[in-house]
């Protein structure tokens, strides 16, 4: 596949992720949206590393995946805590930072 096609795919995935992250009420969905955006960037990394013999892009993609896994673990823990605290998984209820 051409790089261009891959970038379009990545853009589509990113936008989907962004849309989910911005619109969904459930925090789990938001987390999924974030993961989508991260994976869109992974697609970008992989796409750009096609012509790179040192495969630095793929290395970055793997690195991102590891961090995403860790991040997801932490995020799920926080969400769990938030759920325990607010008895809701809706992020609108966790608005203590409201000015």
């Amino acid at each position, binding site marked *: 596949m051409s790089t261009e096609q891959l970038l379009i795919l990545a853009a589509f995935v990113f936008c989907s992720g*962004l849309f989910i*992250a*911005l*619109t969904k009420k459930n925090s789990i969905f*938001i987390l999924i949206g974030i993961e989508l955006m991260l994976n869109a960037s992974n697609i970008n990394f992989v796409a750009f590393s096609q012509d790179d013999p040192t495969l630095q892009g793929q290395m970055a993609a793997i690195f991102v995946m590891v961090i995403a896994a860790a991040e997801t673990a932490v995020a799920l823990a926080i969400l769990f805590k938030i759920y325990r605290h607010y008895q809701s998984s809706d*992020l*609108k209820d*966790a*608005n*203590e*930072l*409201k*000015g």
Partner: protein
Amino acid sequence: MEAAQNHSTLLIILLLAPLASAVLTLLLRNRKGALWLSVGGVIISFVSAVLLFNSPESSAIHFTWLSIGEGRTLTFGFSFDWLSRIIAALVTFVSLLVHVYSVGYMRHDTGINRYFAFLGLFTFSMLGIVLSQSLLMVFFFWELVGFTSYLLIGFWYQKASANQAAKKAFIVNRIGDLGFLAGIALLWGWLGTMNLDELQSIFAVAQYDNGYWLLGITELSNLALIGTALALFCGVIGKSAQFPLQVWLPDAMEGPTPVSALIHAATMVAAGVFLLARIFFIFPVEALTVVAIIGAITALIGAIAALTQTDIKKVLAFSTISQLGYMVLAMGVGAWFAALFHMITHAFFKAALFLSSGSVIHSMHEWEEKSGQHIDPQDMRYMGGLRKQMPVTFYSYLIAMLSLAGLPFFSGFLSKDAIIVEAWAWASNLSGAGISVFHLIPIIALLTAFLTAFYMGRQLFLVFFGKRRLPISEVKPIEVEGWMKWPTAILSLLSLGFFYSLNPLDGEATWLNDLLKAPASLVSSTTTMDTHSLHLIMAAVTVFLAVAGIAVAYKKYTDKTPTAADQLSPIGKFSYHQLYFNRAYHSAFVQPFTKLSSFIARFDHAIIDGLVNLLGVMGVVLSQLLGWIDRYIVDGIVNSSAWLSGRFGQVTRGIQGGNAQSYLLWGVVGILLMMVWVFQFIAWKVTF
């Protein structure tokens, strides 16, 4: 040397014995002890005074009271000349008799310790004046005498009139004393001394040169000297109750009668004349003329006011004023000795008169208590016919009264005659030949002599002759006890002429004349008159006037009640109200003075304090204004900037929804905007 030492010891005893007894009397609770103590004190004093007659005349004592700067001093000094000695003896003698008299008179008074203490204090102060040799010391005791006089006039302090009289006496005296002090200060300023001996030696060589006096190293204009002399004379005017300050003396009769005898007749009021004698050498002729005029006016108005009084003491008080006028007149015409002579004779007969009147009052008072009737014990309208009931008092009174009226063989004749003769000689001297306006002064003196005889005759007949006018005739007034009648008798016996001069017609032939030597005067005395023949003429005239006065009084007042004050003729009222002096002074000085003081107080409160408060109020108003500016303008700017940022925050807080998704959205928007910016501006530039 030893003699001098003895004399100074004696002098100290003479001066301090009355003071010591006064202080002890005040501390002592015992009434009887107080009596003995004070009488004893005066006896010691009197004996010392007599013993001092032996002292050498030159042995004066000086000591520094106060030193000013380097070398200049204010000294106190005691003088030992014959004038001091004689007057000191006179003062202690009269004081002694008055003390003895007071034992009887004041026996029942509760404040007797206080009374004798004041009396002792007075004797001390009076002796201070008499013995002092420096004008400063005279002034020192002068004021103390005024103070004791104040205390004694106001002795019965619960009586409003007595307080009023005491205050009046002190203040009127103080007016004179201001002048006196000014005179002393002027002398100090010009000549640098207040010592009478030093002053006398300066003035002894004074030379007159074209309106200026050459006094030692100083040159003084005649006008300045006249001013100084008259300033000093003010003190005399106050203390000796001369016109225009004579108003205090009649009121001073509110004090106990023995006090009136001692202080307001014999000694204190004569202190003015004494002072005049002491400072006689300072007076240039113009000043002396003023002195003579003042004396003449006083003699006349005193006599006029005495004519219609109904209070037995008031008559004597006005008579005292009149006689003091005589003495001052005598000084004014240069009759130094005659003035002092009259002062001495007057001391005896006037003290005798006052003590007699005191006895009468005492007796009337006792009658009042016995009969239960209420009368004014001093009012002559209730008296009459006391001759038989009170024989000793009557004869004492008679002798003294005849002496005052100026009948031959009595002391008063001698001294008064001397004054009139000298006055006539003085007037003739000034006017050259014939009669001039200066003769008014001896003529006034003669007129006064007639008036004196008249009012004294009136009193004699009203009090001692005629019928008793008391409301109840069953209870009779009785003679006073020995403590009172014998001192009176002694004083009146000393009014007999032969004690002073064997020549019953010539006052200047007395032995006193040999002792009392007039100091050198600035006025050149060139009496060319033959005073001897003048003596004869004047003696005849005065005797005639005296007899005529008594005769008229006899005709008018035997067995008659004197008219009450409100039924008097206008002229009578004029006399009764003391020529309306009090009223005039009240409306001319007292009232304006009090008004001025309350005006000043209001001025102080309203204007000066008002200005200060206004300043304060203005400060407050200003600070309020500044506060307003601060609050609404300065603070307003600050507050409005805070408000603005608040509003801004309100607007922007919407972004902080607390919603993580909205943050994300804004983040994305921000990134998009940045991307737009990057591509619009930066990337463009890089590319092209």
